[in-house]
């Protein structure tokens, strides 16, 4: 340095002073697991697909979504969206309407006729799927994506399983179901209807399948012993809902009583209303807090005039259409106990909605299986005790929802694929969860959730038109943009802007950022001011 003192210095010559040496801890970019993704039974990368949707790139969003779940239009109608319950935005104003955006993407795909690509190569393996419900179809889709030939054998006349024969039309219009199933057929999944597999090992052997995935569902209605006169009209919920799909609709009469407290009980009561019943009464032995049915379904049913008798059990049904109901009382442990108080209810028919059992007859004679409470035990890889036979959906012990079933199908497909290659599938380790306290919510603008329009009440109770409508594009875009992008950089440039030392390098659109550790002093402002919690401080190693 031969410059005279205090005359002039070279511009930007401070770069010679590597202030990074001051640092005792360093910032680190990371991806945390958004709570929505963590809560999704189908393992969707929700934050991931909302990201392209935010800029209006719906096809990319749809393709990302369908990498995990082939049925967005169905999901957008029937999924109970645990993602929204976990959404961090719920702590800020209201959770993001993930389910309605998913439905918008699904409907958009049907409208624009987006298709799945056929697999790039054929593995030469042939996999049998038994049952064309959500679990079987999901497995078939994922196996096909992985290059395997797939044949789905279904006992019923049409594909869909409980999505068709259990969920009423007003929740899932059949053209939507058909459109999303057709996409699977278009990518080469073979469906064979009206064939019941009675012996799985024989079917596998005759068809020369390399592996099988069983997803026959739970279709046998559970019964409760209720003394009844010979002319008493008693039906089960599964039969009623299945009957709605055929030519001969079930005869329920004007006064219908439904016994049970699950979503199926509500489906039947709401169906009865639409069939013209003047009274649809649900009898349930516990109270609303203990009811397994989802709150919004209870709310919609009550709006439609369905009545619910809480804390009541049915003792008997007389010929002339009179039910005897006993009042119950919850004990300290929350179990209902009889009170000895009785009352009578008039009813033309009684529908039992007490849950379903699995028809496991196709497994007769298969060695090595473990059965538990009428379901088949599977390992963490979804394989039964018999090598090469996998199972999922309602026939294995789990929560019985469409989304869980779809998740089983995906998981099983990955393990079947690995098994066929003589390997085992190890899911990548999960990132740490992006909890609410990791976010800096100051940066998000307040925005209420866009509520989906509902069909007006008079039309709801008299027709089977869909109750909940979709979002328009404007609203879907708005809703997607409410996503906080928890734990995943959305390139807001905050770290790049707030660094007092210019030690954050912006790499350009889609490429995120990196730190310049020559100058980063480790102040941590970038961590504090990152809206979505995608940076953390780690101690510097010496």
């Amino acid at each position, binding site marked *: 340095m031969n410059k005279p003192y205090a005359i002039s*210095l070279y511009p930007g010559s401070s770069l*010679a002073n590597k202030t990074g040496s001051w640092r005792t801890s360093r910032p680190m970019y990371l991806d945390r697991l958004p709570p929505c993704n963590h809560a999704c039974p189908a393992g969707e990368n929700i934050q991931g697909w909302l990201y392209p949707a935010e800029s209006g790139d719906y096809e990319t969003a749809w393709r990302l979504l369908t990498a995990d779940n082939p049925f967005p239009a169905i999901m957008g109608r029937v999924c109970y969206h645990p993602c929204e319950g976990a959404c961090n935005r719920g702590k800020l104003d209201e959770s993001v309407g993930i389910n309605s955006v998913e439905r918008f993407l699904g409907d958009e795909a049907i409208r624009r006729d987006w298709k799945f690509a056929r697999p790039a190569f054929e593995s030469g393996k042939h996999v049998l799927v038994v049952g064309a419900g959500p679990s079987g179809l999901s497995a078939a889709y994922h196996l096909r994506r992985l290059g395997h030939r797939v044949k789905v054998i279904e006992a019923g006349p049409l594909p869909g399983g409980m999505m068709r024969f259990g969920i009423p039309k007003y929740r899932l219009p059949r053209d939507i179901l058909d459109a999303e199933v057709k996409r699977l057929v278009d990518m080469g999944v073979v469906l064979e209807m009206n064939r019941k597999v009675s012996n799985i090992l024989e079917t596998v052997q005759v068809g020369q399948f390399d592996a099988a995935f069983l997803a026959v569902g739970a279709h046998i209605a559970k019964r409760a012993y209720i003394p009844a006169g010979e002319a008493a009209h008693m039906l089960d919920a599964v039969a009623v809902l299945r009957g709605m799909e055929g030519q001969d609709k079930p005869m329920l009469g004007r006064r219908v009583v439904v016994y049970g407290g699950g979503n199926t009980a509500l489906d039947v009561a709401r169906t009865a209303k639409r069939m013209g019943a003047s009274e649809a009464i649900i009898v349930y032995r516990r109270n609303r807090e203990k009811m397994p049915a989802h709150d919004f379904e209870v709310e919609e049913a009550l709006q439609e005039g369905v009545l619910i008798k809480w804390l009541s059990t049915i003792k008997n049904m007389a010929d002339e259409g009179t039910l005897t109901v006993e009042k119950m009382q919850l004990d300290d442990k929350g179990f209902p106990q009889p009170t000895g108080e009785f009352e009578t209810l008039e009813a033309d028919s009684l529908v039992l909605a007490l849950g379903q059992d699995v028809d496991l007859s196709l497994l007769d004679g298969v060695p090595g299986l473990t059965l538990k409470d009428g379901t088949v035990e599977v390992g963490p890889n979804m394989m039964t005790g018999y090598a090469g036979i996998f199972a999922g959906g309602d026939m294995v012990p789990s929560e019985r929802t469409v989304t869980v079933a779809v998740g089983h199908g995906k998981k099983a497909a990955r393990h079947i694929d690995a098994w066929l290659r003589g390997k085992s599938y190890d899911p990548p380790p999960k990132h740490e969860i992006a909890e609410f306290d990791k976010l800096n919510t100051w940066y998000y603008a307040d925005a209420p959730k866009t509520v989906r*329009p509902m069909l007006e009440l008079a039309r709801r109770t008299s027709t089977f038109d869909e109750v909940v409508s979709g979002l328009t594009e404007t609203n879907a875009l708005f809703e997607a943009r409410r996503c906080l992008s928890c734990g995943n950089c*959305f390139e807001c440039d905050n770290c790049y802007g*707030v660094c007092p030392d210019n030690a954050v390098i912006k790499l350009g659109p889609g490429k995120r950022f990196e730190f310049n550790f020559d100058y980063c002093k480790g102040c941590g402002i970038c961590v*504090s001011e990152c809206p979505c919690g995608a940076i953390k401080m780690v101690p510097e190693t010496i």
Partner: protein
Amino acid sequence: MPNELQEVKFYQTGTFTVGNRLLEENERAVQANMRRTNSLNSGHRACQGCGEALGARYAIDAAMRATDNKIVAVNATGCLEVFSTPYPESSWQIPWIHSLFGNAAAVASGVAAALRVTGRTSTRVVAQGGDGGTTDIGFGCLSGMFERNDDVLYICYDNEAYMNTGVQRSSATPPTARTATTMAVGKEPGNVFGTGKNVPLIAMAHFIPYVATASVANLRDLEFKVTKAMSIHGARYVHIHVPCPLGWGSAPADTIKLARLAVETGLFPLFEAEHGEITGSTKIRRKVPVEDYLRLQKRFAHLFGAKPDEARLARVQANADRNIAKFGLMD
């Protein structure tokens, strides 16, 4: 059936974040740009989490863009000068001159005059200093520059004390704050209530074309005000609130958070004035009690002993509430 429930455009974070991929390129902040000037470059010796280093880059980069990169900066003595130009290095990437602690406004007036007489009128002059160099030592030169309406934008980076000499009180130090010269002892711990001055309001009393306050917590507001100032000729004054982790006894990572809390409590009102009249103020988004702001700073620790000093907290809160009413900070 109403389908259009909401017509508003919603860009996830709006303009609260520095950038936003959903906004058009030209709607994003200067600081979001990959080719921003970085007028104050890396390698400067400011403390970890320095609010002034940040404020200076925000302001000068914005001024650079507003003038097509044609500015000369004059710097008063102070932290900014000391940490940016220790011999033989300089962090500045713009024409920059330093003379004395108290004469930055006068030197800037001279630079502006020199540019005028040599016909280089497209080159603009920015003077900058800390609160000490502005509100105390350079105050006479500043007032002179204002009353002559010299074509200079003077930016004061206010960290509320003389930080580089060891945290001595200035006339911008807030009431009850502990500094090296206002210890937290005796009947009146910390800086005495009722002392100090408000230089933005004094600048307004000169009826100069533009006066504004800004904060490192609100980048878009800051850039807007600097850009607006550069679109005007004559004397202009922008007063930027810049937290100082060292002098305030706060965590380096909390610098922007503190600046934000100062705004959201009402203690540091953001407003603009033209020719002596207030023309607008930036509204408080989520009002918070002053305690939230004070608790994070050791210079106010004496208010939160075993028994909180309710009386003094109430006086600070009253100051905040007065600002909210006076500057219309809430609807």
